[in-house]
């Protein structure tokens, strides 16, 4: 893990992204920030629309939030921006686009079903990939190594 060379800056020649990965701690705090943000907005909808309809809105809200922001050129949700980390394509380091952002959100649901095992997976994975990273072929990297041009870009 001392190869910080190729791939820095992103958008390169299609090789696997080298260099550092975002740590568990920063990703956890980013997820906490995003979770609180969506949770608060969803709570308002729950109070207005009732539990069932509110849950539906929460799901769609999360889907739109993660698919748009993680699919954007910056690859950053508000939480990831606060923690200076971003989602990039594992192959080439570029943005993943809304379609794969959507796939990554579906992957989040898969990751959380067995008590969050898919999230914990990054703790021992050699590329620090969660299941939703593997499903969407992404890695999460620090912006110190992969700077963001504009947000959301």
């Amino acid at each position, binding site marked *: 893990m001392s190869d910080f060379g190729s791939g820095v800056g992103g958008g390169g020649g299609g090789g696997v992204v080298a260099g550092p990965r975002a740590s568990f*701690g920063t990703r956890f705090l980013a997820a906490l920030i995003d979770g609180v943000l969506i949770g608060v907005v969803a709570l308002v909808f729950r109070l207005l629309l009732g539990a069932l309809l509110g849950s539906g809105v929460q799901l769609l809200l999360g889907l739109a939030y993660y698919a748009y922001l993680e699919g954007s050129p910056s690859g950053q949700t508000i939480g990831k921006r606060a923690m200076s980390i971003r989602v990039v394509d594992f192959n080439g380091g570029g943005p993943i686009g809304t379609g794969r952002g959507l796939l990554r959100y579906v992957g989040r649901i898969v990751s959380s*079903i*067995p008590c969050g095992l898919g999230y914990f997976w990054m*703790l*021992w994975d050699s590329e620090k990939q969660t299941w939703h990273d593997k499903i969407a072929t992404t890695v999460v990297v620090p912006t110190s190594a992969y700077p963001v041009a504009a947000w959301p870009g």
Partner: protein
Amino acid sequence: MTAGPGLRARTTVELHDLRVAGAAMLAGALLLPALPGPDGLPCPLRSLTGIPCPLCGMTTSVTAAAHFHIGAAMAANPAGLVAVVMAVGLLVARRRRAVDVPAWLLPAGLVVMWLWELARFGAI
């Protein structure tokens, strides 16, 4: 069973993130019984299908193990004891950066954990 190259394969696990997660887990386990509210979250897989997942019982087990209730920890999920011992070990051996383990260790551990939980909930 012959020990082919597949079983001899080893994988390197970096310890920094595991150490952080382990410390957070220990802190959570020590604090959880003192906090109001439920002692853990329901398993989505078990809520949806009735089938437990490999990590079912881990909140109970880790909390019990951190308070030296070994029997209760064993009953809920023996892996909780392993997790607590490993988390303490990682804090003691703070200079160690990575460890080489057999590649089959983690998948095998998860299979054993799942079988234990399936049996505990009468699914097998």
